[in-house]
């Protein structure tokens, strides 16, 4: 087994290979995510962004290669261990809100905290807090079916941020939204990451949106074209950021 990665990398993967029922998704990907940074993974549809996020966020087991989180191995964890890691350390926003349909918005946001064993009061007050920050307090008592898509996606963002995870994974979080709503959601995600020292891994097919990131890694056909060590500092941030 190789040595643990440097301490300033919160998440680190080397040579990961993953295929879906024979279809190769990731061929050989190495990537390092630094503590507190906003990292964008860009690439066309089908280049393996979602699979990479799945492997990094302990949802999918890798076929080969290594994934380390906080200097401890993720690729050797059992399913229960990966569940615990996702519950306690990671947050996730997908390209669809994927809320639990029968729960209200407030319950949806409080659910990850309840699952992690937080108290009833603490869970719901954190939920209310995040619903307010995302400007969806009016929808707190409504079920997802009664809301419009942009509200649902904001609730999904609140659900990912409410437990204050170490790393938030956002897989094309702006896919179901219009331009203005896209900017708003990304601003909220990145500012929450900066103010709470969260690490944000953002997958997007839209090079425009990568401007919110500190650093960009391009993924082409399941490969990172260059070595994993800081590839290129994408025009770190556009003016005003």
């Amino acid at each position: 087994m190789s040595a643990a990665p440097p301490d300033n990398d919160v998440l680190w993967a080397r040579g990961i290979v993953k295929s879906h029922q024979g279809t190769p998704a990731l061929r050989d990907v190495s990537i390092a995510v630094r503590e507190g940074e906003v990292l964008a993974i860009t690439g066309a549809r089908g280049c393996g962004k979602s699979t990479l996020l799945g492997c990094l966020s302990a949802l999918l087991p890798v076929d080969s290669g290594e994934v380390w989180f906080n200097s401890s191995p993720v690729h050797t964890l059992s399913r229960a261990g990966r569940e615990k890691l996702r519950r306690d350390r990671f947050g996730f926003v997908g390209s669809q809100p994927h809320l639990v349909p029968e729960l209200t918005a407030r319950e949806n946001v409080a659910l990850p905290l309840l699952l992690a064993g937080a108290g009833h009061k603490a869970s719901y007050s954190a939920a209310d807090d995040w619903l307010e920050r995302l400007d969806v307090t009016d929808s707190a008592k409504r079920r997802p079916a009664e809301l419009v898509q942009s509200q649902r996606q904001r609730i999904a963002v609140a659900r990912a941020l409410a437990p204050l995870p170490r790393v938030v994974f956002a897989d094309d979080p702006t896919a179901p939204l219009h331009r203005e709503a896209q900017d708003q959601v990304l601003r909220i995600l990145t500012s929450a990451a900066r103010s709470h020292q969260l690490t944000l891994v953002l997958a997007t097919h839209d090079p425009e949106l990568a401007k919110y990131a500190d650093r960009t890694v391009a993924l082409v056909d399941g490969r990172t074209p260059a070595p994993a060590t800081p590839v290129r500092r994408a025009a770190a941030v556009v003016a005003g950021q």
Partner: protein
Amino acid sequence: MFYLRLVRGYRVLDLGRWLLTATAAAVVAAFLLRALGRALSDPPGAHATLERLLWCLPPLLAIGWFTAIAARALPTQRPERMAGLTAAGAGPRWIRLLIAGELALACALGAVATLLLFLVLRNNIAGPSLAPELGMGVPLPPAAPVALLALLPLAGGLAAAAAVRPGERLPGGEEPDRARHFGPVRTSAAVLLTIGGILTELYALRPAAAYDPRTLGLPADLGHTNAALLGGWAVATLGLALLTGPLLAGTGWLLALGRPSPQRLLAGRGLTGAARELSAPLAMLAFTVAVVLTSVRHWVAPGAEGTGLLPAAEALLTTGCMVGAVLARLAELRALRRPGSTALLRLGASPRLLFGAAMLRWAAAGSVVLATGALTAVLGAGMLT
């Protein structure tokens, strides 16, 4: 040919639907052909002919009920097939036709199998005991069995075509809010019907009414009763059936009351959300099982005359169709819940927690069904004795 190609992609659930439809259709076809055989053997003008045909109505309705619910479950259960058919240019009407055709075909195959058996047996193979049932020795007018058996695919296909909702599953189809609550009017009407029916029956059963003549003869060797008892029972049963949905929703609400754990929260809210979808099949199941159990208890009571083969076979068939309908609806709900479960697993919920929530949900739903079914059965028993 198209359906044969579809059959190649069948899974256990699809095969179960096919086999249950075909078997039920075969049994109902046997009832219909027996009615026809007796009509041929009996002297013209015998009264029992119409009654025998009427006996075929409940199982025919049960088949219609099952095919309707199975047809509605199909687009949700097999979204990839719907997507494929849509991509091939099939619109909602065409998909409705395809699904109805599939179930009508299963009904027709069952009916044809029974017809072949009937024709073979008529060919002097059956013993003398079966001869009058088959109308042996009397020439068979060919239009009669065809007209009778056409009822089966017609009932199955029409029920399926009316129930299927392909629009929801098509790309861009509007997903309805399935977790809508029950209105207060519906709930209070159900409560009033139930209480009214129970009170009517209790009044008709009061000791002073012991000498009331019970003049209303019931079919299936169930003895006699009177109009007040029968009316009270029917109203209470209707009320209980309408009350099943609100009771399911209320039980779910109770489960999630207070400061629920994630398991209790998911179970309770899930039950409330599924109450509208579950209420009809569960109410029909509770009603059928209650009626069947009450009848069986009456038939096997000491000193009772028992009953013939026909009511027993009908009880079995109807119960089978009702259980099949509940299973089809459960499969539909399971497919509908899949995105929600995926989201929960993604959040790090353990499968054990989801399983526990599902068990809790089913225990609660089961107790509601048990309660309404038991009340229906008790009221029915009171009406008979």
